[in-house]
């Protein structure tokens, strides 16, 4: 399986290449990509240098242009696709139908991948993107179980890429307005979820409160580690009971099920985290490289040593196991 790794900066890209990535994916420094965070992402010259460096090491580069173009401003997204193709990236990752059509018409030879933000969760949707826009690979939503992925791969002709490690979206990606409900900014429109500019921490006598916009996302006792208030990972109250109603603060880690994913026909593994530093990238990419190499050599029983890097130090195989639902 191909190892697809994130890079939010040129330094992270080099770290990923050196740690054994097959592919590095990144975005331009604007709202065209779904990790539009301050101080992150690539200028055009930076991307051009990155592609030269990666190609010299036999590593591919994908450009994520996977937010939904704003009505009246589509030219910004068109330009991003044009520039990425001119720079010579190996694939462009897109979500919006209008932008897919533009890319197919303008750059018929470019390799197009379907972003997870398009939420193509079934064979009919995937066939649609393949038939209409020539999409060659689809990044599957994190809502599908291993069995569902296996069935899907039997019935479709395009490659599939699945999330292997990092943050977990518990909602169908590209179909979620929770962030904009609390902050006015969303993954689809702004490339951000629960953005830092709307986060506040409030110290109380015996607790710390994390807030997103006007809403309390969690309250931590003095003995608890304070986490980032990603909306769907918060603690809320329903039926007079408080708890993590949507998801515990855990991270996805598929190390334990790598052979099953390969057997299910998965082409590529994606590591989440373009917002992460290069030390994190080195460690995660290196661990996955080692696990994949062990499997390639016929060794079994891979286990992750990445727990310390996980959110809340807890890992999960998420929706891949049906019991998650």
């Amino acid at each position, binding site marked *: 399986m191909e190892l697809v790794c994130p890079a939010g900066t040129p330094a992270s890209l080099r770290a990923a290449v050196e740690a054994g990535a097959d592919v590095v994916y990144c975005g331009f420094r604007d709202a065209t990509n779904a990790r539009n965070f301050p101080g992150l992402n690539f200028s055009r010259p930076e991307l051009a240098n990155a592609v030269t460096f990666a190609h010299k090491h036999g590593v591919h580069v994908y450009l994520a242009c996977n937010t939904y173009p704003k009505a009246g401003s589509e030219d910004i997204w068109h330009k991003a696709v044009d520039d990425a193709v001119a720079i010579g990236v190996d694939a462009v990752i897109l979500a*919006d139908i209008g932008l897919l059509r533009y890319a197919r018409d303008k750059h018929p030879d470019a390799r197009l991948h379907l972003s997870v933000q398009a939420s193509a969760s079934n064979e009919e*949707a995937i066939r649609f993107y393949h038939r209409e826009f020539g999409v060659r690979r689809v990044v599957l939503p994190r809502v599908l179980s291993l069995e569902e992925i296996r069935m899907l791969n039997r019935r479709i002709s395009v490659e599939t890429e699945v999330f292997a490690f990092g943050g977990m979206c518990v909602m169908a990606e590209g179909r979620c307005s929770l962030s904009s409900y609390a902050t006015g900014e969303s993954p689809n429109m702004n490339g951000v979820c629960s953005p830092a500019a709307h986060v506040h921490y409030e110290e109380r006598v015996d607790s710390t409160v994390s807030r997103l916009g006007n809403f*309390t996302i969690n309250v931590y006792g003095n003995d608890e580690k304070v986490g980032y208030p990603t909306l769907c990972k918060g603690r809320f109250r329903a039926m007079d009971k408080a708890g993590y109603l949507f998801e515990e603060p855990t991270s996805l880690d598929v190390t334990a099920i790598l052979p099953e994913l390969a057997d299910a026909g998965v082409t590529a593994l994606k590591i989440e985290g373009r917002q992460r530093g290069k030390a994190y990238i080195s460690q995660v990419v290196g661990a996955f490289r080692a696990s994949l190499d062990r499997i390639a050599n016929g060794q079994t029983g891979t286990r992750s040593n990445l727990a310390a890097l996980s959110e809340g130090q807890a890992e999960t195989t998420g929706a891949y196991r049906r019991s998650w639902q």
Partner: protein
Amino acid sequence: MTKSRLVMGPILFHWDENRKRDFYARLADEIDVDTVHVGEVVCAKRMPFFDKHLPDIIERLQNAGKEVVFSTLALVMNEREIAQLREIAEMPDLLIEANDISSIGLLSGRPHVVGPYINTYNESTLDYLISKGAHRASLPWELPMSSIEALCNARKTAEIEVQIFGRVPLAISARCYSARAHGLHKDGCRYVCGEALDGMDIETLDHTPFLAVNGLQTLSSHYLELSTAIDDLKDAGVNAFRISPHTLDMVRVANLYRRLIDGETSSDEVRQSLLEMQNDLAFADAFLHSLPGADLRETLGSRAE
């Protein structure tokens, strides 16, 4: 200018058969509603409870002169759900609402409507959808006024629909949060989502109303209420207005918005009447203003006169 369409959206909640049948029976006799959506949008597991009643209900609504739209699932995840979708797509003489891209593929070339769960964010996407047979596009809830205006300018002969009343669907998941809150798994959910007729209230730990859970779906706690923006929406070119079913008297709600759209009542009166019907309603309208969706703004501050 043709009359604006008033649309009753699909019932999002797992109401029992009697409540649903009463709801549609009353709508059939209600002149203010032009279009009525039927069909399950949230969870395929709920379908067997009501599917048997649908042919009669559709016939009754059509005989009463309503345009009936069959809404489909927002998140399609397996072959069984695809098979159901294919069956629906083959029903003759029925307008179908696509809510997942898979249904756009299946409905291509036949007249259909594009639901608000489809990401119609810009002119190119709308243009493509119209080329595949979309007669109407119901826009995503988080769009600001500027996007709605731009989309209306690009709509050609298609209608543009905007939801103006009811809790806003914010997210959909493979995981059932009603079951999870009850300590159950989705496969053995006991249909606990049916206990919360307008969704299960979710508060912050500081007791601020925040969200509402409806099985796989998460909605806003606040009720979207766009009466103050009706004239702006009409001026922009929006010509269909959706109200989303809740337990309050929806016939009366429809009548309020019909009169509002026709210029026979004011926004103040609409809100006052809604509060008379249910005094704990909290309203929100700020997606329209590029602000947090939970906010409430009275008028379009940036509107150029």
